[in-house]
């Protein structure tokens, strides 16, 4: 008779579950989606009123990529700060953060929750290429803006089937072009060894680099990949050392960046010019390796590193530090991901300010028509620019070299669109 009990219990549990989920919303709420009048007639005003605007973000707060979850804290701190100053054009921002654990199916679920249940105005940031690729079809169908996704895959800008989705940070190909240009100028006959993460990020950057140096005297003589699940990259580094290359392009994420820099420093027989990509160029990655071991390392950046003392008196950096201290006391202001969140949120603020209509369509068009928009935490000379045929907000980066205890910018900011022409598929 236990079976009957189990059955009955299962039914009761299911029923309870169903009613519990039913409490919050029911089918048919779709009708509540609203539309605007006047000049913006027929456009969607879901999630936005004269006094409020609701945004949703999907970040990995748990799981293997949790290190990036803190971006949401920087974003949230910015919106709280803006709300206390009166909001964005008089609208208070409500920012809903959901966790996808870096799993695409979970990202789909959370995107649906944000759109259908939370009724957000826009999905502001999905993090990571897999999660973003999993939801962009859905958001496109629902006509919900997905501005400034937190991934640098070039596909967000080269694709023309998803007008509602756009990137923000320099795409990985653009970054590769910056290094290619630097090498062409400084080491025209360089033999390059590449360590890269075996995913879209590493492949995109490596592919972009190979394309950018093709036809020049620069050769890629060795390449080694690693998986994010690997414990260490020391074996790969040993293989690269065998190649005898004189330049090492290090396309890694923070922990592996530290490991690669340390392995390079340990090997006194091989001393290539070490170029570390932007993701792993934070002072927080270099410090554990020991500053004496990373002298002369080259990288490129587009926003101000909060751990870098040269920005200590920068007004926007001060605002950022104070606000983070006040609104996200548990977040470390020195962590570059918090600053990234702040910078991208203030970029969205600027874009919202330029909307012609306070509608989803208005935002979609606004982020695709940015004209040299300046954002406080971006480097001087780096601005947001988009337009017809250009769906990459940031394409300028500046080179930097590590000296003493900090990065020193050198040369002029490199506008990769000007140097190499627009990026196509």
């Amino acid at each position, binding site marked *: 008779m236990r079976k009957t009990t189990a059955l009955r219990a299962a039914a009761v549990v299911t029923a309870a579950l*169903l009613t519990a989920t039913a409490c919050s919303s029911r089918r048919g709420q779709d009708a509540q989606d609203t539309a605007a009048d006047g000049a913006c007639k027929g456009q969607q005003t879901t999630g936005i009123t004269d006094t409020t605007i609701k945004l949703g973000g999907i970040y990995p707060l748990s799981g*293997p990529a949790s290190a990036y979850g803190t971006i949401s804290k920087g974003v949230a701190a910015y919106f709280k700060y803006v709300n206390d100053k009166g909001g964005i054009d008089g609208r208070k921002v409500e920012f809903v953060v959901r966790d996808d654990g870096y799993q695409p199916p979970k990202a789909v679920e959370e995107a649906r929750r944000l759109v259908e249940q939370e009724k957000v105005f826009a999905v502001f940031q999905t993090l990571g290429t897999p999660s973003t690729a999993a939801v962009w079809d859905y958001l496109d169908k629902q006509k919900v803006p997905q501005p400034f996704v937190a991934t640098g895959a070039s596909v967000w800008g080269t694709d023309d089937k998803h007008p509602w989705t756009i990137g923000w940070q320099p795409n990985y190909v653009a970054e590769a072009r910056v290094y290619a240009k630097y090498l062409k100028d400084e080491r025209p006959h360089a033999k390059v060894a590449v360590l890269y993460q075996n995913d879209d990020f590493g492949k995109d950057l490596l592919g972009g680099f190979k394309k950018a140096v093709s036809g020049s005297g620069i050769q890629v003589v060795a390449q080694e990949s690693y998986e994010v699940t690997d414990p260490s990259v020391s074996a790969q580094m040993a293989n690269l050392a065998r190649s005898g290359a004189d330049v090492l392009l290090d396309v890694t994420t923070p922990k592996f960046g530290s490991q690669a820099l340390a392995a390079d420093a340990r090997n006194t027989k091989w001393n290539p010019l070490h170029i570390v990509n932007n993701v792993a160029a934070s002072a927080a990655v270099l410090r554990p390796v020991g500053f004496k071991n990373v002298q002369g390392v080259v990288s490129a950046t587009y926003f101000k590193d909060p751990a870098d003392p040269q920005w200590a008196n920068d007004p926007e950096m001060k605002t950022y530090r104070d606000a983070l201290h006040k609104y996200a006391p548990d977040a470390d202001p020195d962590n570059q991901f918090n600053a990234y969140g702040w910078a991208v949120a203030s970029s969205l603020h600027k874009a919202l300010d330029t909307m012609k209509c306070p509608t989803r369509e208005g935002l979609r068009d606004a982020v695709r028509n940015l004209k040299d928009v300046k954002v406080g935490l971006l480097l001087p000379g780096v601005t947001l620019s988009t337009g017809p045929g250009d769906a990459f907000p940031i394409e300028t980066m500046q080179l930097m070299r590590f000296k003493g205890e900090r990065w020193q910018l050198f040369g002029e900011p490199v506008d990769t669109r000007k140097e190499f022409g627009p990026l196509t598929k």
Partner: protein
Amino acid sequence: MNNVTASLAADRTRQLRAAPTVLLAVAAVAAPFYFAPFQVFQLTMVLLYAVALAGLNLLVGFGGQISLGHGAFFAAGAYSTAVMLDRYDTGHLATLPVAAAGCFLLGLGFGVPALRLRGLYLALVTLSFAVFLPPLLKRLEPVTGGSMGLTVDKMQPPAWSGLAEDQWMYFVVLAVASAALLLARNLLRSRVGRALRAVRDNEGAAEVMGVRLSLHKTLAFAWSAMFAGVAGCLYTWVIGFVSPDSFSFVLSITLLAGLVVGGLASLYGPLLGAAFVMYVPSVSQDLSEAAPGVVFGLLIITVMFVAPTGLAGLPGRVLGAVGRRLPRTTAIPDRTPEAASAPDAEPRPTAAPGFSPTPAPADPAVADAEPVGAPPRTTEKE
């Protein structure tokens, strides 16, 4: 069940048993018309995971073999579907039999070496298979789209149905899941199922009684892989996107955890486990935004404390405990044997229903809701 009162009450019991099943069926059909699309999507995912868990249940719950690699079969099903849709434009329905057959064969291939491996060793071999698969998928870039994955069309509702996309998906998955769960049930009632349980409970005795050990163990692996493959196929239909990093070994561990939390060797365990896997991470986030993982980990541990034999066994345990505390004249004769059979298993009273040569046809649950636990190695009693 062999006393007079029980047989007199059989008719009423049967009705009682049927009632919740009917209720469940009605609720399942009505749900997509009542809930918001997003919740319908969640229910669809629950059903989909339930199919995978039901397959794992065949192997772990009834076969007593632990697999930590079912995420790989799930991925194989998902990828074969995505590749067929992407490269060959076959249409959705054609992908299901291919994914099922492909994973069946893959499971058969894996089942042969698995014969020699027991418990722990099998678990670790399957786990390393699950670890190996994502880089392999990335390597086979021309076919699988590499690390960028493949985006394919989701299944669209036909015009005549008048249903929204999420509703149509739900019904399709519901149909496949019901068929799969029924198949799992019938499999267990057949010779295969009886043989499996006999092997799990006492391999030596089963062999002496003429059960062909190797055949049944290999087949269990194959069937189980097939279910995972079907679930993977449904996954591609619903999500419309596959990428190697979606199928990391974490998925395999999640599946096993879901099954154990739901209840091993129970018919409703996979459903409950799937609901746990689907809903609890969001609940964890609602409880603690700062660290959902802390709450999720604690919830797994807590459930195992409260229901060491899984959620499906919980009501039985609770009622058993109540029954012991408050002696009721009618309840006692029914409940004591079960309560006693719970944790101890030394002379394992496997008079579990479907085990007798002629199972009662009206038995809705094929197995005991109080599972005896997978690898019957711990035979201690607290």
